[in-house]
């Protein structure tokens, strides 16, 4: 059994804080959207706004961390062996085949994973960020001469929220697909990934 330290302390802190904040924002956000009533509109709004600022702060730190450590390179997209990964999730996983991708310190994410995370970082996050800030400050934007329709802002923000929700569901499921059900979860908790050295091969 090979153990690799792949998630640093900051990364884990970032991940779990972000997870908490995103779940809280989905919960409160869909209440603001009118889907259900849990906290009441006022509380939901306040929690959502507070969580938003916390998440923005966290993201600023995370972006800084990515660029200073060079970790941003983890998300450079690559099609190499992506067919093997897709085949694994569609077929091999049911046959008990090992994952075709071998985690290394330099390449932590399989190509499919890297694409997904890149999508989150370049599409969903900016859309949520920009539409959310516009949602908060549309009066100020209007005063500055940039009159946006609140309905359009809400449309974009809600669309991004649905994307985030889909990502979250898939992500939570996929962490159960390590060589044991909890292997990936353990890695994100401790930082140490236990790779089944006998089977995996480098694909990324």
């Amino acid at each position, binding site marked *: 059994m090979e153990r690799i330290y792949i998630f640093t302390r900051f990364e884990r802190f970032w991940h779990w804080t972000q997870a908490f904040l995103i779940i809280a924002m989905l919960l409160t956000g869909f209440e603001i959207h009118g889907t259900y009533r849990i906290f009441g509109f006022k509380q939901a709004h306040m929690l959502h706004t507070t969580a938003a600022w916390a998440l923005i702060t966290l993201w600023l730190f995370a972006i800084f961390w990515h660029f200073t450590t060079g970790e941003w390179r983890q998300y450079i997209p690559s099609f190499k062996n992506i067919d093997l990964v897709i085949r694994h999730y569609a077929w091999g*996983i*049911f046959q008990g085949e090992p994952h075709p991708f071998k985690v290394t310190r330099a390449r932590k994410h399989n190509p499919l994973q890297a694409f997904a995370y890149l999508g989150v970082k370049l599409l969903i996050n900016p859309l949520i960020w920009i539409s959310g800030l516009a949602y908060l400050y549309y009066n100020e934007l209007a005063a500055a001469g940039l009159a946006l329709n609140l309905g359009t802002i809400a449309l974009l923000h*809600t669309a991004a929220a649905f994307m985030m929700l889909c990502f979250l569901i898939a992500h939570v499921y996929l962490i159960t697909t390590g060589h044991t059900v909890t292997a990936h979860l353990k890695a994100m908790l401790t930082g140490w990934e236990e790779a089944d050295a006998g089977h995996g091969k480098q694909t990324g």
Partner: protein
Amino acid sequence: MKIRHLALLAGLLMAGAAQAADAPATVKLNTTADHSKFKELQQEFASGPEVTKACLTCHTEAASQVHRTKHWKWEFLNPENKQLLGKRNVINNFCISVPSNYAFCTSCHVGYGWKDANFDFTSQENVDCLACHDTTGAYKKLPGLAGHPPYKDTEVPPGSGKIVKATDLAKVAQKVGKTSRDTCGACHFFGGGGDGVKHGDMDSSLASPDKELDVHMDATGLDFTCSTCHKASSHDVAGSRYTPTARDKDGAHVRGKEDLSNPATCQSCHGQAPHKDGRLAAKLNDHTDTLACQTCHIPKIARGGVATKMSWDWSTAGRLSPEGKPLLVKDDKGRVIYDSKKGDFVLGENVVPEYVWFNGDVTYTLLGDKVQKGDTPTRINTLGGSAGDGRSLIWPMKVFRGSQPYDPVNKTLVTPHTAGNDDTAYWKNFGWEKAIATGMKASGAPFSGKVDFINTEMSWPITHMVAPKGDAVRCNECHARGGRLDKIEGIYIPGRDSHHWLSLIGWLAAGGTLAGVLLHGLVRIVRRKN
């Protein structure tokens, strides 16, 4: 020791009492004049106009100032749409109209003697100073006396055995002072023929309200009078229901700066960013581009224990007892809900207002205007406003619904002669044709002789009974489907609105993802391999 203390206490008390006796207890510190010391007022007055003559010896310009006001003329030319309005011209769905009923209606006129169309509007002595400046509460103008108070003991209503004492004019005149909630309220609380009937946000409970009822007029707190906001200038009182300020874009009024905007708006004191405290302040201030302050801060009307009329059906009036006597039907709280003179009423307390976009444009249906009986009620007043016109805000309204007589041949509203001790007055004779013929003659309008009833609606912008901030309308009450603003068009309200196709696609996608991973997981479990 104890005895010495007691003696000291007694001494202090006596000194206090002596001081109180010396002080001119009747004169408030906010005036430099004790009117009881004026020779002009130390006489027996036989009538109101005599008092006015005495007032005018010092207040030389007061009457001519009053002459220029709506309070005097009961006439107002709307500069926007050139409609000739004012009480003597408009028709409403309460007591309907003034002409032919002058002697009764003008008990709320700031003058003496307006009993018919020949009233002299240039007479200075016919201005009634006391109606607004009485501080004793003993000055009461009675219906039927054309604006005069009773000069001798009078039975009101006749045959009731209830005697209203002759007015002590000298006493009232010697104690004049500033206007008060009581003087304004003597008419404005009782509009529509009774306490709270007309407005919903104004009734006798505002004479001495607590903080919950009105945060500004709170008698033991800020204790505003009407004129604190409705600031008069040369006897012209600020604020109008004919040309209201629906959206005040000016800031708070400041001393030394010339502020020509309406001083009776919320913004004229509170400015454009009124919320200062708490984390929500900025977001609440954002709401001022769509909401009138009143929309959140007057959660309900008729909150002071006085019911307001919500509807009035004149078509059922005239039902008499087998003996031919008028009927009076009361509800379980002792409030009149049927009166042979007037028909059926629906009363309401703690009423949630209705909400509309309002830009301050008000158009009346006047006597000559054609009306059509149909499914939609005739608007007594039509309010302008929409989300996109840049002048509107969402306002709370009391919408007063009624059914009232109209001329189905000429297709006009009518002005019935209701009050009076004569052969045609409806309230004495219960015959619509004669009453309307007399009334329309007084209005100088044609009448076919046919009478039918037409449904009407009138909107009353709500602005009084401002609740403490803790009682303001909650976020959920509008940010929800089926909430207070459910019918408001033209804006996106989070919590109320959503893009249905987006929600459909979004939930299908999320549900699809969930189903996909569950299925995937299920197959893995079934395969039991990984």
